[in-house]
């Protein structure tokens, strides 16, 4: 019998499994699909500290940022500590941006208008300035998830890690009040504890255990260009509008392009945010807006071709914070879901904290802001 069953082989489930195995636990990861086939396979791979307001999510992001740098040593996936450049359209916006940077307490450099070209030679003129965040990084999320599961299985003698793909969780086993495993379409799996890392479907999984965890989809489109021979863009570049978009509560379409090059050549332009349920129908206006914003940042992109676009569904909670920790309403069930547009960046910290709680240690961060039953009072 494994110590832990992790539901979901996305980047968050992979990180939970990796750290749990490293902590000496025997882990089984189950996914109804392949590894990284959920939202992790539709994300962009930004590991950002720049876009977060001071508070619990920024603390999580900073912890995660350091852990990603360690994990990059595992080899097997691209990790680029390229840094992020946030640019401001007007003096007023620049002031707000610099103010935020000061409050964040994150390593940063304020870049005057004239200095932007040193960071990004192809950036459009006319920006009032920007802030450079050296800690912002890029990771290839699918390979990262697969590698964490693989290395987790390789490395740690006592804590074994097994991946079972194509296995759908249908319910929970109970041991008195405690959750003691899962039922699946391939038989029951008894376990000491269960981790719900089902991403956008985390709410459904929670409901199988009879607990309410509101996780909803927020659609995002990404545009991908043909590969470039010469890198045109050196860092992650986005306008200050992105920061306000991320935190927004709006139902409607919001876009604020984050533009960056990738090691395999194409430029990624992401991402839109809108709440339309799980609707995959192509929205041309969304693609048009992303293209427009990218060209506004880098006019040279106008001549380059977009060759594909894809969409995914970010798992979001009403207060835009993830759900991390054991559920007092269903002891033995630990949640690690609802990371919205930052699950890739926040995965290692989430996995690390979940492993600490599973192993009965005190977590490095206070999990109160992320507690699973925080939505009860609002119902």
């Amino acid at each position, binding site marked *: 019998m494994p110590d832990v069953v992790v539901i979901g082989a996305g980047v968050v489930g992979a990180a939970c499994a990796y750290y749990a195995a490293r902590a000496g636990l025997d882990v089984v990861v189950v996914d109804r*699909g*392949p*590894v990284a086939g959920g939202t992790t396979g539709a994300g962009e791979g930004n590991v950002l500290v720049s876009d977060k307001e001071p508070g619990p999510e920024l603390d999580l992001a900073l912890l995660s940022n350091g852990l990603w740098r360690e994990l990059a040593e595992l080899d097997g996936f691209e990790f680029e500590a390229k840094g992020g450049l946030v640019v401001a359209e007007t003096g007023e916006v620049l002031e707000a941006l610099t103010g935020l940077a000061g409050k964040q307490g994150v390593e940063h450099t304020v870049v005057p208008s004239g200095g932007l070209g040193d960071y990004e030679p192809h950036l459009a003129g006319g920006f009032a300035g920007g802030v450079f965040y050296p800690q912002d990084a890029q990771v290839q999320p699918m390979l990262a998830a*697969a590698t964490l599961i693989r290395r987790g299985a390789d490395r740690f003698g006592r804590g074994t890690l097994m991946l079972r793909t194509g296995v759908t969780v249908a319910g929970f086993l109970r041991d008195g009040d405690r959750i003691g495993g899962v039922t699946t379409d391939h038989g029951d799996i008894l376990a000491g504890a269960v981790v719900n890392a089902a991403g956008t479907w985390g709410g459904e999984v929670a409901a199988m255990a009879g607990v309410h965890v509101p996780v909803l989809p927020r659609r995002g489109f990404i545009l991908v260009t043909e590969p470039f021979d010469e890198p045109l863009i050196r860092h992650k570049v986005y306008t200050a509008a992105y920061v306000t978009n991320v935190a927004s509560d709006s139902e409607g379409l919001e876009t604020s392009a984050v533009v960056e090059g990738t090691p395999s050549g194409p430029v990624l332009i992401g991402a839109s945010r809108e709440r339309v349920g799980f609707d995959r129908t*192509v929205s*041309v206006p969304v693609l*048009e807006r992303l293209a427009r914003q990218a060209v506004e940042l880098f006019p040279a992109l*106008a001549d*380059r071709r977009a060759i*594909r676009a894809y969409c995914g569904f970010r798992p979001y909670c009403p207060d835009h914070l993830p759900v991390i920790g054991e559920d007092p309403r269903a002891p033995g069930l630990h949640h690690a879901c609802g990371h919205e547009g930052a699950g890739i960046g926040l995965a290692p910290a989430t996995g690390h904290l979940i492993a600490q709680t599973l192993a009965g240690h005190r977590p490095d961060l206070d999990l109160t802001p992320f507690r699973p039953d925080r939505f009860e009072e609002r119902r």
Partner: protein
Amino acid sequence: MKPLYDLAVIGAGPAGVAGALTASFAGLDVVLIDAAPRPGGQYFRHLPQGFNAQAPGALHHGLDGFTRQWETLRARADVLLGHKVWAVERAEGTVTVRCLEGDREERPRTVTARGLLIATGAHDRPLPFPGWDLPGVLTAGGAQALLKGNLVVAGRKVVVAGTGPFLLPVAAGLAEAGADVRGVYEANGRLGLARHPLLAAGKAGEALGYGASLARHRVPYRGRHAVIAAHGEGALTHVTVARLDSAWRPVSTRTVECDTLAYGYGFVPQLELPVQLGCATRADADGSPVVTVDGGLRTSVPGVYAAGESTGVGGAVLAEVEGRIAGRSAAADLGRRVPPLPRLSRRRDRLAAFAKALLEAYPVRPGWQGWLRDDTLVCRCEEVPLSAVREAQDLGAIDARSVKLLARPGMGWCQGRMCGYAVACLAGEDPAAPRRPIAQPIRLGDLAAPTRSPLEG
């Protein structure tokens, strides 16, 4: 040009032209759009000048008929050639077709219509094998295109290989154009020309024509044989031909000298536009996804019709019949008086049954996977070797999509049109309907600019 057409037709092959013309005769305002600068689709567009004169009766007849339809259509409807459609949308009963006009310096164009007929045909289905990326190795469709420039073909030493009845017209065309065709290798059983399935559907003239042509040029036609490797330093010099068992595992091999290999293992219906609109799809007899249609060629999305190879690979005659039925349905659904024509539907049923029998007679057997070596490229755009696909599977990829996410086959310029079928086979599943929100590469500047309708010039 009109601000709102009754029907937009995408594809100027036999299905699209017949559909557009039928709808126009029934009283609809029609616009026909095709990416190619010339009409005709896969088949009629590529016929070389010299070939027409000598073409077997049935084929010649087909071309004459097509040309007449085309001339009539041009006088009755708007025709936009050289317009690549990159996206289609539908809202409140109106279809918006987004095109790029021109080749390099494209201009965005928008066409709107109340109904849409999708007749985008199919593209070649190559399988990877060692050496398939050498210059001189062509798909069957590529060879047809090559034929247009007769000069290049004459004197070439050509091998034709793969599976399906379309190997014969390709070989015959090459031989007639003066190529030295060294052999036609059919991986499935050679049914014998006398028993060739084309005969069964009253296509005797066609099949016999090709057969006679091949015999006249002393071209050997062998069943249960395949080209399993191509060799050469920088360009093709010879191929390894294997005799196959029933699962397509090589039994014995020999070498054949050639400078050109034309090969194909069937066709993949082009479905990105219907998928963008949310049209339901189903698996055809060979497992390929095709658009689901009713007897009137209506898709699951109201006002959207599909005809020709996008509903299943079945040849030019079936495509034309389907186009006519679809054109009639479109007109009827918009309130035009269209008398029933049960003869046409019966004809379609017969031809479709024959097409299904052909797909079943020429399947792709799994043994081809054994022809690959670890370093054989599966995806040429992204240079993904077989070993990378296997590593991805080892990491937990259990379907084609996750293989693509982990190892990148299909992420490049052609968006999996070349390798998608092979990757699905390697992943052990039937190919899924392609999700391509951008059906054709588009410059970001064009995507960013508000699109104009052809009306505005």
